[in-house]
């Protein structure tokens, strides 16, 4: 160790090689077209499989038939007839559940007594399969729209509450101290510091809650619904009409993609300040 010298060894004496790169990875980025390509490839495989016969018609409907069914649904005007009530149920139910959920979540995030009282209650309500409560809701709110709104609202409420109070907990306390040190009123601190600070968490919670709302749409239309995507799917399912079943499922999927896109757009607009 004592004869370390700074002069390079004679040329050719030691082998040289470039140092291999070993960083990179662990930073996924989204490429716009790959998601689309996965869909297309899967559908093409299904189409090809059903046409050549190694997927039987009982296992999976042919995608082109589903598309045809969808076309008929649209041209007969039934699509709008089904979509209209479903969308209004989704909108009313989810808006109700999410807004009450955000309010309750904020209250839990701000007040110790409300937190101690409601957190166990929410934990108790969260795992209840809301579908199981449909008969109860029918008794409480009637067989009409009321029970459907209630089911969807209840289903979106609990995940929204949990996401919201978690988001409020995560708001940077130094910002709140700052607000207090400048003599901001309690209401100003909540409105101008806590709410915007919790917005990222609230929006990512809404992604989940709204997906749950779409799931519950089918459940809500199990009882006392003539029209609606959920009713359409259930009807097709009981008749084993796979084409119609899939046409309905595709509509729900598209609805999910649409909701997620809308939230993504809101996030880009509202949360542009994030690094």
């Amino acid at each position, binding site marked *: 160790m004592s004869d370390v010298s700074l002069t390079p060894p004679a040329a050719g004496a030691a082998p040289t090689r470039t140092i291999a790169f070993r960083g990179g990875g662990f930073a996924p980025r989204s490429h716009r077209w790959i998601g689309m390509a996965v869909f297309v490839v899967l559908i093409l495989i299904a189409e090809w499989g059903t046409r050549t016969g190694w997927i039987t018609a009982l296992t999976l409907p042919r995608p082109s038939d589903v598309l045809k069914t969808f076309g008929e649904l649209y041209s007969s005007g039934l699509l709008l007839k089904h979509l209209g009530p479903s969308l209004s149920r989704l909108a009313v139910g989810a808006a109700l559940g999410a807004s009450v959920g955000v309010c309750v979540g904020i209250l839990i995030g701000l007040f110790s007594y409300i937190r101690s009282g409601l957190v166990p209650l929410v934990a108790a309500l969260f795992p209840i399969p809301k579908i199981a409560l449909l008969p109860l809701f029918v008794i409480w709110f009637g067989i009409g729209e009321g029970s459907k709104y209630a089911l969807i609202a209840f289903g979106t409420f609990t995940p929204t509450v949990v996401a919201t109070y978690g988001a409020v907990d995560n708001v*940077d306390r130094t910002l709140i*101290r700052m607000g207090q040190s*400048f003599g901001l009123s309690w209401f100003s601190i909540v409105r101008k510091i806590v709410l915007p600070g919790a917005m990222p968490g609230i929006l990512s919670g809404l992604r989940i809650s709204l997906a749950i709302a779409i799931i519950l749409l089918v459940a809500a239309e199990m009882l006392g619904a003539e029209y609606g995507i959920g009713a359409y799917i259930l009807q097709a399912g009981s008749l084993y009409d796979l084409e119609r079943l899939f046409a309905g499922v595709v509509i729900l999927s598209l609805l999910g993609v649409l909701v997620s896109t809308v939230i993504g757009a809101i996030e880009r607009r509202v949360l*542009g300040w994030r*690094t």
Partner: protein
Amino acid sequence: MDIRLEAISHSYKEFEVLRDITLDIPAGKIVCIVGPSGCGKSTLLRLIGGLERPGSGRILQVGAPPENCLNPLTYIFQDFALLPWRSVRGNISLVLEDHRIRGAEAQRIIDDVLARTKLTDFAAALPKQLSGGMKQRVAIARALAVNPAVMLMDEPLSALDSQTRELLMDDLVSLWTRQPFTAVYVTHNLHEAVRLGHSIVVLSRRPGRICEIVQIDTPLEARQMGDPDLDMKQKYLWQLMRDEARAADAELLNV
């Protein structure tokens, strides 16, 4: 407006952090508080500004704050505490909105403080676009906007690199010479203390007591880097603190 601390003691549960602090903060002067880590200097600052309640003792405001003072005791935080979703202008208007200052009047105040902190060109920028030094300038501008009687500065330059720190110290000195303000400046950096402090309060390690108060009479604007007199003071402060700092460093943390 002066601030007077009378026999302040404070503890967190069984941990005594401050013991019997009696101190006067005269108007128009910068009082630096230095001490080893964990000596309660930041706690002392939070007590002065009313963000925490002292265990015992009293903190008094002597005299009335100047007129048109919106927030007599105003903090500048180490981590800037800017709202990331508001622009520079929005961050300053935040502290005016609650005082019902809006529109043209707010505009005038914001433009004034931005000019004083050389931020006029950055009014529309978001905090994420600014460097650390710029962020702290915004925080200083925000503090100036409420026209404070006493500025409470909690290690304001500690999150910055040393070059930016020098620049901001120059800025603070020129702000003070143009319009003297009262400040309590907490730092662990003795260089900052001798550069900015009219008097320097040295605290012992926990529980923090006042070891000594060192006065520096050289006017702020005349303090240059490498001034032998200031170097002497800095060396003296370090001698006061070294053993305490070593002992504090070797303590087990009980947090």
